[in-house]
């Protein structure tokens, strides 16, 4: 009798174990595809490196020559402003050359396959791909097929992962709160469609956060979400009680193929973060959002712009975290 794995309703886990692809034999970061499976030591090392880059702003020349002569390709098959521009700025502050390729202006619309695109860019002697794609597993696919000596960073693949976003969130929390083990963190909103939420949950558990909660209506939660190591709440008021950090998610209107919600208005009535509801959390609770925020849908403007909001710090720290990941992965190439 063979026991079949009950994987039908699991979250997407494309390909072989991610660490076989993203780590070198001695455990260093070669690609960054997902936070899942990374050690606490490695995540801490990324955050520590980001800390050194975060202090660069006092320099007259806000650049270091670390990636001089390297070429980074931002390959974006899906719209993005914040992620693409902060990756671009991170690469430029490391003195790399940057090529931005967006799907709307590229030959992918003419029917070129992902593999062909990859081969053609490789032929231009590039050193790193930063890839965003609507399909889960696209970054893994590229990492599996790219030449040795080229690093792949996942800038968001389908519903699967957005590792640099989760890492910059961890960096922001660590800067403001220090130790993770005493923290109660609530992730609120559209967990079902959110690669950000999945990466955040993994990162918080790796860093041994005291309690990780997800707060969402049943229709916006994946099956067996508890298996990821979270406490599930369907009521925002209960979910917010005594938390140290609340991480809001964007309601992904473009991913809603089916009617998961009666209306955005009703969603805000039940799950929107308002000043009054925020009072249920600890008085120094941080409010985070990966952006772009739908004001008046998942978060009230007064909260997004309020004293507890660190939304713009997340953007600033995103550059330092991406610089850390870029220099760690490219640094491994020649060794």
């Amino acid at each position, binding site marked *: 009798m063979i026991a079949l794995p009950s994987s039908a309703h699991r979250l997407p886990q494309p390909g072989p174990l991610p660490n076989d692809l993203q780590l070198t034999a001695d455990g260093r970061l070669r690609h960054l595809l997902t936070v899942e499976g990374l050690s606490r030591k490695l995540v801490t090392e990324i955050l520590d*490196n980001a*800390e050194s880059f975060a*202090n660069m702003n*006092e320099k007259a020349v806000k*650049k270091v020559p*670390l990636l001089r002569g390297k070429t980074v390709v931002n390959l974006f098959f899906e719209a993005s402003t914040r992620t693409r521009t902060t990756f671009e700025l991170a690469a430029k502050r490391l003195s790399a050359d940057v090529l931005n390729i967006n799907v709307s202006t590229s030959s992918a619309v003419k029917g070129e396959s992902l593999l062909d695109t990859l081969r053609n860019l490789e032929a231009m002697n590039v050193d790193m791909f930063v890839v965003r794609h609507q399909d889960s597993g696209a970054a893994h696919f590229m990492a599996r097929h790219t030449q040795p000596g080229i690093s792949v960073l996942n800038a968001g693949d389908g519903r699967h992962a957005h590792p640099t976003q989760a890492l910059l969130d961890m960096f922001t929390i660590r800067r403001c709160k220090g130790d993770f083990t005493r923290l109660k963190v609530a992730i609120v909103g559209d967990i079902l469609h959110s690669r950000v939420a999945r990466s955040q949950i993994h990162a918080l558990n790796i860093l041994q956060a005291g309690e990780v909660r997800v707060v969402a209506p049943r229709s916006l939660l994946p099956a067996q979400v508890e298996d990821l190591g979270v406490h599930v709440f369907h009521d925002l008021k209960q979910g917010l009680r005594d938390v140290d950090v609340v991480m809001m998610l964007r309601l992904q209107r473009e991913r809603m193929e089916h009617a998961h919600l009666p209306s955005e208005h009703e969603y805000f009535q039940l799950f929107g973060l308002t000043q009054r509801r925020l009072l249920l959390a600890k008085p120094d609770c941080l409010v985070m959002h990966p952006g772009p925020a739908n004001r008046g849908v998942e978060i009230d403007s007064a909260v997004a712009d309020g004293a507890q909001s660190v939304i713009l710090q997340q953007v600033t720290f995103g550059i330092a975290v991406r610089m850390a990941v870029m*220099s760690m992965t490219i*640094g491994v190439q*020649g060794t």
Partner: protein
Amino acid sequence: MAEIASLLDNMVEQTRYHFEQRGIDEPLVVGIHTGGVWIAEALVQRLGYTRPMGKLDISFYRDDFSRIGMHPQVRPSELPEELDNQHILLVDDVLFTGRTIRAALNELFDYGRPASVTLAVLVERDGRELPIEAAIVGAHLELGAGEQIKLRGPEPLRLERVQVEGRS
């Protein structure tokens, strides 16, 4: 091996003379992580300098990054004042190939344009690969092939000869 204290005394004397000759009251002292910071702190104390000193971590400016990758522990560089038009005393523990100093100079110039930079080292050894020399030197050493000298510290500071394979 000579006592660190007497090497520091040599450096203090040379530093006083060097800056008096040039009519400079008190330079801005900048130590290179980690050993250079220890030596810089000891010097500042002995010289009775009062300006807060700077610290440089040159990891992001190394020329061997593409061969050996990220340094596992990068500390933030801290410079307490603007560097423009300042006289700088750059301090390191051991001057060997000169590559660390080249990296440090590159980093300093990303902070501003100093009026002058003077190099002070606890130990100067053979094996220079770049045209870089120290004006203030605690001791000169000739070492055998594959031999290196390392400063351990911070309490107490001590010099150690170590045998290393292959790496320059």
